[in-house]
């Protein structure tokens, strides 16, 4: 059991945004597979179809994607959150995106009747014009949006950060000063792949974001820096597919971890990571996850 921003999680694995999160039923399925909490697909102000396909592909070192924030709008998604809340029996976190503070607030107010357990602000999607990292790279905007959202909800607010900035700590501090209860790091790293038979960029959007094993060391360093400088919890995400990855992320400073593209290998990834963490803690003689959060900082 871990507690993050007041939410009790049966284990520290969380389904990352944008993965198996388009419907209430799929969120329930992932919860039943063992996730300690689930984050929805990012939900915006109006229905969007996203970028044309190909929208995701497996590469030598990870996964490349550019979905383009497809979503049915907060109006239609309310009933999906209600389903997840009723049947998942784990905290349900609503990931949301907008182009400015007013849009974020509108979505928060629209989704609140469905009683999500927290909001995760997507200020980090690397390939959506006018959204995500486009505004999430500016500390002033990040602080303003975070602050407006916090003023309009009673549930915890998490801010998901982009690594595609010179200094992620500046953005993390902006979120914290805006009142964020936690930061989530990292979203995907901007990347691209080209089809050499034709010269075409493969993704429908041209470029996208890299996830999977290749970005784990980047995520570890970002989480390490954020843990060092912030007084709010850091939730680690990026390239986690095994319990060893999760333990490493926690030792860097993460209070919990999110798992995304690793579901490609199987939805049992959540239970295998959480049971692996438990065995590891027991074997070494730790009382719980909190004993190893940020452990690496004590060694240097």
């Amino acid at each position: 059991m871990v507690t993050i921003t007041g939410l009790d999680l049966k284990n520290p694995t969380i389904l990352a945004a944008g993965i198996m999160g388009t419907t209430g039923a799929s969120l329930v399925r992932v919860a039943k597979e063992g996730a300690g909490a689930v984050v929805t697909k990012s939900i915006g102000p109006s229905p969007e179809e996203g970028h044309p396909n190909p929208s995701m592909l497996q590469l030598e070192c990870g996964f490349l994607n550019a979905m383009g924030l497809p979503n049915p709008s907060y109006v239609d998604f309310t009933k999906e959150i209600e389903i997840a809340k009723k049947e998942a029996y784990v905290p349900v976190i609503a990931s949301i995106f907008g182009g400015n503070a007013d849009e974020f607030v509108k979505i928060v107010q629209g989704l609140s009747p469905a009683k999500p357990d927290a909001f995760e602000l997507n200020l980090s999607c690397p390939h959506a014009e006018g959204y995500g990292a486009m505004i999430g790279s500016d500390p002033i905007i990040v602080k303003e949006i975070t602050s407006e959202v916090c003023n309009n909800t009673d549930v915890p607010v998490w801010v998901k950060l982009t690594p595609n900035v010179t200094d992620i700590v500046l953005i993390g501090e902006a979120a914290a000063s805006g009142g964020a209860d936690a930061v989530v790091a990292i979203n995907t790293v901007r990347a691209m792949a080209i089809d050499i038979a034709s010269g075409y960029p493969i993704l429908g959007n041209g470029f996208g974001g890299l996830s999977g094993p290749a970005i784990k060391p980047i995520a570890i360093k970002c989480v390490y820096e954020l843990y060092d400088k912030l007084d709010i919890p850091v939730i680690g995400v990026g390239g986690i597919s095994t319990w060893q990855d999760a333990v490493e992320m926690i030792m860097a400073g993460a209070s919990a971890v999110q798992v995304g593209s690793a579901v490609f290998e199987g939805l049992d990834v959540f239970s295998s990571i959480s049971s692996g963490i438990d065995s590891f803690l027991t074997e070494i003689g730790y009382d719980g996850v909190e004993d190893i959060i940020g452990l690496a900082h004590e060694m240097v």
Partner: protein
Amino acid sequence: MMRPVNSVIIKIVDDSPSIKTFFFDTSFDSSTAGQFVMVWVRGVDEIPMTLSYNNAITVQKVGDATSRLFELVEGDSVGIRGPFGKGFTLPEKDNRILVVAGGVGAAPLAPLVEYAKDLGAKVTTVLGARNAYELVFKNRFFAVGTLHITTDDGSEGRKGFVTDALNELDVLGYDRIYTCGPEVMMVKVFDILQDAGALDRAEFSLHRYFKCGIGVCGACCMDTSGIRVCKDGPVFNGMQLVGSEFGKYKRSASGQRVEV
């Protein structure tokens, strides 16, 4: 690693005024009937298509990508990834199998019946279409066993729907039943088989909007169990579909519910 494989079109066959089969120089010999590939029409879109031969797809012109595909000629190329998903449960040697195919839904079933025939299974097919021109792979089904044909306008075979022919067959006399076609057709087949107590021996090849195509994004998840059509399917046993959204609604590219 799974980048699109450059695949050159080596032959195009006109199956009907709106349906063509494209043969490629890339062959998916390890594929199982019912599995699909993602076909990337460069600069337009990437779409899921079931294999109608190890090296071919059979396409109905319905949208941007298929329209562009119809403009391509022999020697042009597309990018193909796959095969993906779960195909049909293959029949065994002594099985009697029943296949119910509607329109371009015949595409994944033709290689299945040829596999079954080679194995020694006994094949019965109900093939339906709007009219005689749209009876896809009629000769392939005819060559491997008994064939019942229905057309909506009566231009060939029996005038009516596949369900009219199905209603007159003893479905419990077959070890395995396979169906693919428009969902409004398949749900009627589903109802007949459920009433007859034959749902557990039946498999349905489903269609939903695919985004990632590899089981990660969740765009094709069905209610109420959250099964992913691209990864857990596209072929499902009838029992998996009981109480599901099948035949009722599906989700659009944005995730909004739309009626089937």
